[in-house]
Every structure is written in structure tokens, then in C-alpha cells.
């Protein structure tokens, strides 16, 4: 008996020491792998992965630089915290020349937004001033936070909606020659502290409607405050953010506020929104990524109203810091999953990003399970924007996630100060005056963006250090577009208070591709909400056209599908918002197909 007890004691001590050392070593190993020096040369990356993202700002003649907003002096102690957004990027072919152009927003009073026209020779030219969309950051009407493009009057040219911490503004595209500000009389609100907006046709009437998500309460002008009690009431359960706006397009250049009528009464802190038909009803549902609370999923009930089903669907149980949303069919199942970014800071806040994979049949009340951890796309950093796209044309959607919050003085951290107030009572956290002075400190700064390569087996490989030069800007918006009509997706990243990164995607592989550029006739002319399913080699991949996706960003209008080394596409199904489905058998590959919805407008 005594011997057995002694043996038990020895085993207990061994297990104890083993657990202590094993857990510590495991953690250390992971931390060193995160900050490892795995940088590879361009040649090595091309050889191994078949692509390389090469910074191309200089060659493309893009010299834009973002400037953060200036705030009321009362917020001086945490100005970098609050003024941490506004760098956005959206892709548009505003002059219908078949080449993608780029729009960047700026956020300081007096700063200029930039519209880079594609010159077809590898270079771009900033034409924002001559087109009338540069000088938009003014005292009294606020500063830009992002932009989305959509043809709201179905005249064949993409119009510009600018969301701001200020007055939202609508610019009509006049034949690709100039933009006219048509905000006055359009029915848009006087002031919204918005960090997201999307175009979508929620009632499928062929006219693009608008959703705007408020972040800070709309009663505040952050550059001119009479209170400091503007902050979230909780780090996880805040409901004191800005209101939401749903505007129905009345068809005469006017928009009607139908927010309450349609049941969008949330005042959570919205940072991103995306719309796609997630339950097969034929109507676009609305996903909202919220900071300081749970994300929300609004199911569209036949264009008549929205019903929030976040909790029932599985996506609304755990409050995190929702920063962005994107849709991606990562396993070629023909179903859209939802990826949302959050915050991961080792040892302090491990939220993890989510990939919500649909489970079971598509029904009025869809269900999702979070597979981000299994897929290896969970922990990125302090993440903001994201986009899915097939970067190496192998037939599987890869993922780009922008990271980094505030890069202040190197070697400093505001996290301790931050944790003091964010863990406290609402009366304390809600008042900016209580927040410790940042004194130039960093908070999750100097982080590298994540690039995850889809290895086709449901697992992603982190190739962040391997397929592009090291960069640690404070990444915000991400967009993917074929900037030089080469059949590949280039990547554009808008960085806060810094230059953007325009990555040219250099390919070295034998992979094929196919693009679809859709134009609605019965459906809205931008074909926003249209879904394309491409079937080849036993695979089927689904993509959707969105009027803004990610964080403060919009991808190119055309949909790009990598095909791997397969030289034949079996079938393509195009599901238009009007309800019509077009079928194309054996379309030509390595080609952009411009497709007009068959049925003519009545």
C-alpha cells in the first residue's frame, strides 16, 4: 500500500512537471513560429506557390497617402484609438472602358480622396479632382470613411456613395465623364458616423437600395463635441452605437428611409455589412459585423421585412469585435460561407476570426458552424479587412486579411491601459475622459497582414511571410481586382494614416481561369446580388456580386474563377436577382465573359 502511494506520488510529480514544461514550450514554439524569419525570395515563392504579390505603387503611379481624422481636443488622450479608421479602397470601372479603376478615401478635413483611372499601360492617373470626387472632406459635412459603387439609376454607369463620419453623399456618374453630387433632396440623412454601407436590392425590384451602418451615435460630430461620454458602454454587450439605415430606392433619385418598417432597429456598433442570399429564398439577406457585441444576421422575408436570426443560426452567440465580413465557398461545395474578422492578441484577447460554414439544407432559418480553427484561418492579429479570392488560380479561394491597429512608439503597448477601462463598469468605459492617455503607445501595431493559401483539402496554409515582401502597416480595407486584365487577382490594401499597398500578382503556373462580368436588365444594372456557379472537373464554386464587402471596401465588379490545370468548364449557372437563371455550357476559358441578363426590361 505504502509502495503504491509512493509510486502514485512519483507519477504525480512527473505529470505535473511535464505539464508545466510542455505547455510553456508549446506556447513558446507557437510564438516563435509567428514571428519567424521565413521570408522567401520572389523566385522561391513563384517556384513553390506559383504566385507572388509584388508592391507596385511606384510603377502604377499611385502616390496616395491616407490621413486620419482630426478629433475634438476633448478626445486628445485617445485620439489614435478613435481616429483609427477611414482608409478605404473600392474598385470600379467608372468609365466603362473594361479596365478597373481604384478609389481611395481620405479622412482629414481638407484632404483629398483619389480616383485612379486605369491608363491601360500599367499606370494609373488620379482624376478625382477633375471628376468632382476629390474635395469631399470638409468641415460641416465631415470626413470620408469609405465608398461603394452601384448603378442606382440603371443608366449603365456606376454611381458613387460615400459614407462618412458626417453627411453621407451620393454622386451621380454622368456617362463616365464627371460626377454630380445629388445628395440634396435624395432623402439621405444629415449626419451618420458610418463605417459601413452597401448597395443591394433587398426587394428585387431592379433598383439598388442602400444600407448604412452607424458606428458612433449619429448625434455626435466627433470633431466638435460637448461631451466625452461617446464610448461603448461595454466591451462585449454595447448597444449604444449608431443607428442603422435602410433606404429604399424610389426610382427617381430619391431614397426612402424604411429602417423601422423593415425591422433594422439595432444600435450596435456596426463596422461591416454584406448581403447575399444565404437561405435560398431568392432575396438577399444582410449580415452585420459588430464591434463590442455579437454579429447579426438579418433574414430577408421576401423583400417585405428583415428578421434577426443571429442566435438561432449559430453566428450570434459569442460577442467578439466584428470588423469585417466576406462570403466565400472555400471547399467548392456550391455554398457560401461567411468569414468575419475579430481580434487576437496573444495572452490578452484571443477572440479568433470566424468562418461560418452552412450546415444542413438551406432553409428560411439557415444554420452555421464555425470552422475557422479547423481550416487554420482563425488567428490573424488585430484584423480589419479581408477578401476571398483565388490568388494562384488553382480553383480554390484563398484569403487575405489586413492586420494591425495602432503602430505607435515601437516597444510600447497600450494594452494594459486599455484593459483597465474595458474590463470595468459601463459608467467608466463609456466616458472617453476616463481612458488613460495613449502617449503615443502602440496597440497591436506593426502587424503583418495574413495571406492564407487554400490547399484544397479544407486546410489553409499561412504564406504571409512567403509570397510578398515584409510590410507592417496598419491595414484596413482590402480589395481584389484584375488591375491589368491579365486573368489574375491583384490585391489592393488601404492602410490607415499611410500609403496603400497595390500588389501586382505575378504568376508562374499553368492554371486557367474564367471571368464573368454581369449586367442586369430586369435586375439592377450592376447585377448586385447575382450568383454565379461554375462547374468543372467535378467541382462547383459559387460566387456572388456584392455592392461592398469586407471592411470599407469593394472588389471588382466582375467575378473571377481560377480553374487549376483544367482546360474545360462544364457548365455555368447564373442566378440573377430577378429570379431568372441562365445556363452556359462549355464557355471559353481564359476569357472574361461580358453577359447581359437575357430578358429585356419591360
Amino acid at each position, binding site marked *: *500500500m505504502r509502495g*503504491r*502511494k509512493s509510486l*502514485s*506520488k512519483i507519477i*504525480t*510529480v512527473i*505529470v*505535473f512537471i511535464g*505539464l*508545466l514544461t510542455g*505547455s*510553456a514550450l*508549446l*506556447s*513558446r514554439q*507557437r*510564438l516563435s513560429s*509567428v514571428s519567424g524569419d521565413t521570408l522567401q525570395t520572389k523566385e522561391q515563392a513563384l517556384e513553390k506557390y506559383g504566385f507572388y504579390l509584388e508592391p507596385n505603387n511606384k510603377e502604377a503611379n499611385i502616390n496616395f497617402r491616407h490621413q486620419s481624422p482630426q478629433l475634438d481636443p476633448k478626445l486628445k488622450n485617445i485620439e489614435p484609438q478613435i481616429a483609427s479608421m477611414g482608409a478605404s479602397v473600392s474598385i470600379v470601372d467608372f468609365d466603362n472602358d473594361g479596365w478597373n479603376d481604384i478609389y481611395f478615401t481620405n479622412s482629414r478635413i481638407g484632404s483629398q480622396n483619389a480616383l485612379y483611372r486605369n491608363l491601360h499601360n500599367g499606370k494609373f492617373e488620379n482624376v478625382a479632382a477633375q471628376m468632382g470626387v476629390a474635395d469631399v472632406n470638409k468641415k460641416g459635412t465631415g470626413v470620408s470613411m469609405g465608398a461603394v459603387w452601384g448603378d442606382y439609376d440603371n443608366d449603365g454607369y456606376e454611381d458613387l456613395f460615400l459614407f462618412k463620419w458626417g453627411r453621407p453623399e451620393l454622386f451621380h456618374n454622368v456617362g463616365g465623364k464627371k460626377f454630380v453630387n445629388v445628395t440634396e433632396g435624395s432623402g439621405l440623412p444629415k449626419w451618420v458616423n458610418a463605417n459601413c454601407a452597401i448597395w443591394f436590392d433587398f426587394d428585387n425590384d431592379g433598383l439598388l437600395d442602400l444600407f448604412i451602418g452607424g458606428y458612433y451615435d449619429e448625434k455626435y460630430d466627433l470633431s466638435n463635441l460637448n461631451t466625452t461620454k461617446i464610448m461603448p*458602454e*461595454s*466591451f*462585449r*454587450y454595447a448597444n449604444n452605437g449608431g443607428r442603422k439605415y435602410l433606404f429604399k430606392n424610389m426610382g427617381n433619385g430619391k431614397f426612402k428611409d424604411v429602417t423601422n418598417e423593415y425591422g433594422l432597429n439595432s444600435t450596435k456598433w456596426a463596422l461591416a455589412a454584406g448581403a447575399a442570399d444565404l437561405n435560398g429564398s431568392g432575396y438577399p439577406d444582410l449580415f452585420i459585423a459588430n464591434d463590442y457585441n455579437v454579429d447579426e444576421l438579418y433574414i430577408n422575408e421576401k423583400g417585405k421585412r428583415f428578421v434577426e436570426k443571429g442566435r438561432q443560426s449559430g453566428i450570434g*452567440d*459569442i*460577442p467578439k469585435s466584428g470588423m469585417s465580413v466576406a462570403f466565400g465557398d472555400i471547399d467548392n461545395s456550391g455554398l457560401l460561407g461567411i468569414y468575419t474578422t475579430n481580434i487576437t*492578441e*496573444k*495572452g*490578452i*484577447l*484571443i477572440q*479568433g476570426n470566424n468562418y461560418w460554414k452552412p450546415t444542413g439544407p438551406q432553409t428560411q432559418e439557415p444554420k452555421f458552424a464555425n470552422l475557422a*480553427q479547423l481550416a487554420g484561418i*482563425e*488567428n490573424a492579429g488585430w484584423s480589419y479587412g479581408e477578401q476571398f479570392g483565388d490568388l494562384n488560380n488553382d480553383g480554390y479561394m484563398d484569403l487575405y486579411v489586413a492586420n494591425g491597429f495602432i503602430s505607435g512608439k515601437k516597444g510600447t*503597448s497600450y*494594452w*494594459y*491601459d*486599455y*484593459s*483597465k*477601462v*474595458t*474590463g*470595468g*463598469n*459601463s*459608467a*467608466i*468605459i463609456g466616458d472617453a*475622459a*476616463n*481612458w*488613460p*492617455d495613449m502617449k503615443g503607445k502602440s496597440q497591436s501595431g506593426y502587424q503583418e497582414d495574413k495571406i492564407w493559401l487554400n490547399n484544397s483539402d479544407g486546410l489553409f496554409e499561412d504564406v504571409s511571410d512567403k509570397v510578398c515582401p515584409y510590410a507592417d502597416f496598419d491595414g484596413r480595407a482590402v480589395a481584389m481586382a484584375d488591375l491589368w486584365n491579365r486573368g489574375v487577382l491583384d490585391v489592393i490594401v488601404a492602410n490607415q494614416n499611410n500609403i496603400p499597398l497595390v500588389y501586382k500578382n505575378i504568376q508562374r503556373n499553368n492554371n486557367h481561369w474564367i471571368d464573368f462580368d454581369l449586367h442586369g436588365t430586369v435586375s439592377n444594372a450592376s447585377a448586385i446580388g447575382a450568383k454565379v456557379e461554375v462547374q468543372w472537373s467535378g467541382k462547383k464554386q459559387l460566387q456572388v456580386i456584392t455592392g461592398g464587402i469586407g471592411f470599407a471596401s469593394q472588389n471588382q465588379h466582375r467575378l473571377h474563377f481560377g480553374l487549376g490545370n483544367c482546360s474545360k468548364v462544364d457548365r455555368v449557372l447564373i442566378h440573377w436577382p430577378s429570379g431568372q437563371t441562365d445556363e452556359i455550357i462549355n464557355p471559353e476559358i481564359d476569357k472574361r465573359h461580358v453577359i447581359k441578363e437575357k430578358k429585356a426590361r419591360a
Partner: protein
Amino acid sequence: MQVIENENLTNTHFWSFWKKNYFTYIPPTFITLILLVGQIFFGILDSYINVMVAIGTSVVSEALLARFVLGTRKNLASAYITGISVGILVRSNMVWPYVVTALLSILSKYVLRYKGRHLWNPSNFGVSWMLFMVPAYVAGLSMQWGSNLLPMSVIWLLGLGIVYRAKKLHVTLTYVTSFIILAYVRSLITGDVFLAELSPLTGPMYQLFIFFMITDPGTTVSGKKAQILVAILVALVEFVLRLNGFIYAPFYALFLVGPVARFIDLRKSAPKTEIKLTT
């Protein structure tokens, strides 16, 4: 707080046992209540599985270790509290850290002993180790709970009632008073407003700390004055750690001060024989 066990319970009539020992089950009931209320009204838990795993690991390992290492049976209420504390205080996207933290917590009771008594509060040991040494996988409950006044007030009132009944109110009050005074001193040093320094005390991490960890009868020293002194020392070490930016300063302070105080106390007073009435 850990429960006070009585090895003779098995021979006691149920009703008399209940009358004499009902308090044993109040702390576990209270912490369960906090968990349920928090989960129902706020959804504090990211996953039920993690808490269940932590509780299961804690209880099973306690039962096994007591049987094979001490050769006795133990009331498992203490292990239950350890498990539930681990489940609430540890935040991880993976399940294994809950298993390891719970295991380390219970194992520490059987390995790190002096004169037959364990030195560390079990969950304080496990949680502190994981937060400090395993940051790649684990974070703490520093900012991830509700911030409303009403539930916080209810938890404070109930918690104070419990520690009063456990005759540890002086420990909690001493620590809280020390924290408030030192928060003011910190605000003078850092230049941050007093409310910012006071703020952590209003959060969930401290509610668990002051009602369940620092008052643990199994690891507090004997004598009221000594207990008050230790509470002040914990607050002082925490003060220093906070000035150096340690988010989980209270855990680390108790981790450092608690066992030293306990060691000195045992050296001075406790008998050399193995004590079976463990906590």
C-alpha cells in the same frame, strides 16, 4: 474560496450533516449561480464545453489523486469550484488549455506541499501559470464580461454575504480598501484619472478574485491580523505589478505572496503530521 472538508462526514446522519455542514455547499452554489446568471443574461461563456471540461477534469483528477496519493476520499466541492473558476477565468479558442489548467491546479495541491498542506490556491496556480507561460493559447477574463451596475451589485452583495459567513470578510474588505487607496496613489503616479485605476475592481475578474481566490481558507494564514497583513501585501505587490503593466496583476500577486505567507505560517504553527482535512 475553497470548501472546508470533514473526513468524518460518511458516518454522519444526513440531516445533522446538512445542518452542520450546509455552508460547505454555499460557495459552490454561489459560483454556479454567478455562472448561470452571467450566462443566461450575458452569455459570458464562449462555450459550455470548456467549463464542463474544466469541471470534469478538476473533479476527476481530485478524486483520483486523493485516492491514490493520499489514500483517502475527498469532498469534491473544492475541485468543483476550481474547475468552474478555471472555466470562467481562462479564455482560449481550444479545449486543451482548460484541461491543462484544471489539471495543473489540482496537481499543485498534491505536489507543492509543506507539512502536509498545499501552498497555492489551486486555481490561482493553474491560471497564473497559463496566463504567464502559455500566452500563445490562453488569455484571461480581463475585459470580456458585462459592465452593468445591477448584476455587479447583486454579485457584490451576495459575495460579501458569503465571505462574511465564511469569516473572511476582513480579508476581502482589507484587500478592496487597499486596492482603492493604491489605485489613488497609482493615479497620482501615472497621471491617469482615478476612475481608470479603480475600474478593474468593477470588473468580473476581480469579483471572482476577491470572493473565491484570496479568501481561500485552505491557503490563507492563521490569525485575523496575519490574514489582514497578507491581504495588504497582495495589494501592494499587485500595485507594483500594475505600475509595470501586468494585466493579470492580482493573480500574479497572490501567486507570489500567498505561498510565502503560507509557508511562514506553517513553519511557525502547523503540526508536522500529514493533515487529512485538506481544503
